[in-house]
């Protein structure tokens, strides 16, 4: 137990490098992850604005495109089709992996796991540091790949072979693709080290009294997410390595009967579908690797700011575990129309729609939590509520896509783009924003400016629905995703007017994010200093002093006496009772 550790005195010297760069401290590593993720998010978002401009006004000369992409990729301001695909690909890769996987788990698992379970630090500080620096190197390689002559990977973020395996098929499948694979390999190594650390820490370093059923839901979600990551990322690693072999060593795991650039290839006997299976065996749990931490943060923010216990704590834990388990047996719903056996389609439809049950339970529990609450609508709370809205909207359209018969006609259309951006893109980003606004005082001892937070929320909330809601109509009209322009088809002419609307909302949302970035960095320096528990919350991180000291608590570690959700408990004057307050005589522990 961590309680047995002696507190380290501040005697050992911390140099600039050991404190800010190669730090072992979970709080510093969390900040490093967050700031790296913010930078990556600016790249990812910027790319989306560039290709949205092309989709709204295809083929028009736009100086801004030439400014960012240069004469090679946007001669006279007209976007090159290869660059369009490259932007789409790297946008997806960056947001899915670097922002919402590395950024989200990296920041909040690191910050909150030791704090909320009452530990001095992660189980292995060194591995934690290694995990961040591998993440950093892989981020640098991914960004670097955008600046090479043949352009970055352009086969879509799923990089299906043979397209991604054959440099003859498109310029992006050359060096750019190799760099993508190298970057992803490092990323996976980083993610695995992080996840192992989270699991070990949660299991071994809980403070006295912190039983599994007294863990905050955030920790439950991070814990389950880490398990998902450890079980599924190695499969992507193998998929990536085999692809690397096919590209560089002449193997043919994914190649068969291919005739490209006027030549029949020697390589035969493989199957591109094998890659799809391996990819989506990670790819679907990945959705929940992104979503569960966001749901965890949202659970905590909602219950704290509702001044009311989370409704159905145990049901929430069970539904998270159920979602995690089911996420491993649904990957085939990405492959209904790949030529996979139709019988498998039936199986995957069944398992996929089952996921809607625990998801529905979660939503109803959130609604029951805010019912008759006393809602403190802080910016974090608004983002959390926004996330619940997005989770509902995007989750419901998932019922269409998970149904194999319906998927036939909306597969790979804008319906899909609208669906997953709402539920896991914007949904997880909202969870992340809620987390940043809520735990900023924990990270920096200061508050972010609430008025700017509100402005940021409204622009983003309106922007997100403005961008992704109309996409469902494009999808139902049969407009495919990843098209450089829709203007080559007479049947898409009439509905093209939706694209400028989407793009205007996208630009608006993008501008709105700079308010957040400004607020974030400005508040680090000049934010209002606050006490150690500004939100009057129960969890242990708010019992630590405002100063972020090495070892988190001066003196002994706090001892836990109750579950984390004693808000507005009858018999108490205040509307919150922190976890380290002993139970009164005759008082039952919460739930």
């Amino acid at each position, binding site marked *: 137990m961590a309680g047995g550790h002696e507190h380290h005195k501040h005697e050992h010297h911390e140099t600039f490098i050991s404190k800010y760069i190669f730090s072992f401290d979970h709080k510093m590593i969390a900040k490093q992850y967050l700031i790296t993720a913010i930078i990556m998010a600016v790249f990812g978002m910027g790319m989306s604005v560039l290709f949205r401009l092309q989709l709204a006004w295809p083929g028009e000369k736009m100086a801004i495109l030439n400014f960012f992409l240069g004469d090679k990729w946007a001669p006279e301001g007209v976007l090159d089709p290869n660059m369009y695909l490259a932007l789409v690909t790297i946008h997806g890769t960056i947001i899915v992996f670097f922002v919402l996987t590395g950024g989200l788990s990296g920041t909040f698992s690191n910050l909150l796991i030791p704090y909320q379970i009452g530990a001095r630090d992660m189980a292995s500080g060194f591995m934690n540091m290694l995990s961040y620096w591998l993440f950093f190197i892989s981020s640098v390689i991914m960004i670097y790949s955008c600046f090479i002559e043949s352009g970055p990977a352009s086969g879509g973020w799923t990089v*299906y072979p043979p397209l991604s395996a054959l440099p003859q098929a498109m310029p992006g499948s050359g060096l750019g693709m190799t760099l993508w694979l190298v970057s992803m390999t490092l990323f996976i190594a980083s993610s695995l080290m992080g996840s192992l650390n989270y699991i070990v820490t949660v299991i071994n370093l809980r403070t006295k009294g912190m039983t599994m059923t007294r863990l905050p839901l955030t920790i439950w979600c991070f814990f389950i997410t880490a398990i998902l990551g450890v079980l599924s990322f190695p499969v992507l690693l193998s998929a990536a390595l085999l692809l690397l072999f096919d590209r560089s060593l002449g193997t043919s795991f994914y190649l068969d*009967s291919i005739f490209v650039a006027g030549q029949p290839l020697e390589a035969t006997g493989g199957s591109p579908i094998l890659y799809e299976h391996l990819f989506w065996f990670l790819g679907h749990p990945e959705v929940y690797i992104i979503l569960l931490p966001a749901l965890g943060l949202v659970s905590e923010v909602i219950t704290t700011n509702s001044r009311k216990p989370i409704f159905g704590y145990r049901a929430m834990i069970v539904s998270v575990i159920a979602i995690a388990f089911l996420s491993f047996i649904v990957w085939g719903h990405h492959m209904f129309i790949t030529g996979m056996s139709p019988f498998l389609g039936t199986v995957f439809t069944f398992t996929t729609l089952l996921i809607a049950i625990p998801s529905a339970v979660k939503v109803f529990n959130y609604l*029951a939590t805010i019912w008759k609450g006393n809602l403190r609508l*802080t910016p974090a709370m608004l983002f959390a*509520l926004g996330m619940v809205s997005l989770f509902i909207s995007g989750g419901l359209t998932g019922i269409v896509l998970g149904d194999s018969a319906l998927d036939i006609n909306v597969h790979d259309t804008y319906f899909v783009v609208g669906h997953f951006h709402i539920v896991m893109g914007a949904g997880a980003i909202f969870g992340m924003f809620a987390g940043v606004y809520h735990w900023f005082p924990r990270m920096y001892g200061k508050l972010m400016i609430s008025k700017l937070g509100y402005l940021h929320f409204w622009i983003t909330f309106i922007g997100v629905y403005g961008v992704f809601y109309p996409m469902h109509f494009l999808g139902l009209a049969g407009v495919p995703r990843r098209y450089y322009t829709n203007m*080559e088809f007479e049947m898409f002419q009439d509905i093209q007017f939706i694209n400028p609307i989407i793009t205007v909302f996208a630009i608006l949302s993008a501008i709105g994010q700079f308010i957040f970035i400004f607020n974030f960095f400005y508040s680090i320096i000049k934010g209002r200093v606050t006490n150690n528990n500004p939100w009057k919350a129960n969890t242990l991180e708010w019992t630590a002093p405002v100063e972020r000291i090495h070892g988190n608590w001066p003196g002994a570690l706090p001892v836990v006496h109750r579950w984390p959700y004693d808000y507005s408990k009858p018999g108490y004057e205040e509307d919150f009772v922190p976890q380290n307050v002993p139970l009164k005589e005759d008082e039952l522990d*919460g739930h």
Partner: protein
Amino acid sequence: MELLILFTVLLVIIAIAKILKAKELIDKFKDADSDPVTPAEIKTSATGMLIFGIVFFALVVVTMFSWNKYLLPSSSSEHGLEIDLLMKTTLVIILIVFFLTHALLFWFVFKYYFRSGKKAFWYPHNNRIELAWTIIPAFVLILLISYGMTTWSNIMNPVKKKDAVVLEFLSEQFVWTSRYAGKDNQLGYASFALYGKNKVGVATPYAMEDRLKETRESIEVLVKDSAEFEKLVANGWNRTKNLDDTKTSLKNFRANERRLNAMIAEYKSNPAIFKAGEDDKVINSDSILIPKGRQVILKLRSKDVIHSAYLPHFRAQMNTVPGLTTEFVFTPKYTSEEMYEVAASEGKKFTGYILYCNKICGASHYNMKLKINVVEDEVYKSWLAQQQDFVEAYK
């Protein structure tokens, strides 16, 4: 456009500046223990959420009605009608849940916003309610799942009819080539070893010999080239990539030569399978005909990368995968001309049946299409009769 962006950015900067000024003034009066948000901010947010909810609902309803005319007209295939019905059922359920849960969400936020002195209702759990909202969604979903799975099984395991049209689409960057089965109503064996002048690689005796000749010629050229490049490299030429590429090509063509030799040997022992392709009809056009009311068995193959054959009006889609033949079966219900009227009667616009690629496949992915005309059976038959058999076309 640039003006609009500039204007927005300016507005945002002004807003930030104003807020900062106010913040600095207020901060002077606040200590570390004062509330992070003000009651006014909370009240404004609650009202904001309610207004957002109302406007959001209104816009969803308005767009659903006014943008309906841009969506696909109702299905033009038999199985597609089942999909449309399933879609409608699903959408109705989804919309009910969407409106209900969102109405609760926005209303609760508005109704229960923070008032100091008030205490929230202590209500940590209620097993009966939780059981109810686990079982009810489970029940609805099981119904929906069974409905969906039955529909899917019916579509994917159709009873194949004798008079079906057997039609193959071969995809390559960025063209669709079609091949119809001939009088025997089956497609002949085809292999990637024969692609070249032979667009879809039909393996007939002559085609194999011809391709072998072609392959040997290529090998000869490549052997010469690589010898020359080797000499140049030995003399310090720095473009070794050319030599490597030539060697790779040589390996590819030599493998193809072996492959063709094996096929020709097999032909000698078992000539029957190489016969079926002779009467196939390869159509090199961006527009084809299919008959109304007859089952169409689509056979899908790919030359280079994965593509996807998407025929939205028929509610049909299937990927084309190199090294694999995939299949999709559908029956057209309306001719192209009839479809104009069907669409018009729904207030929608129809611009002709079309097949297009729906799996990212390279730079011109956005322009890889094939027009499809559905006509009466007689028209189709006489059109097909005019098309040359493979053996005649490939000499």
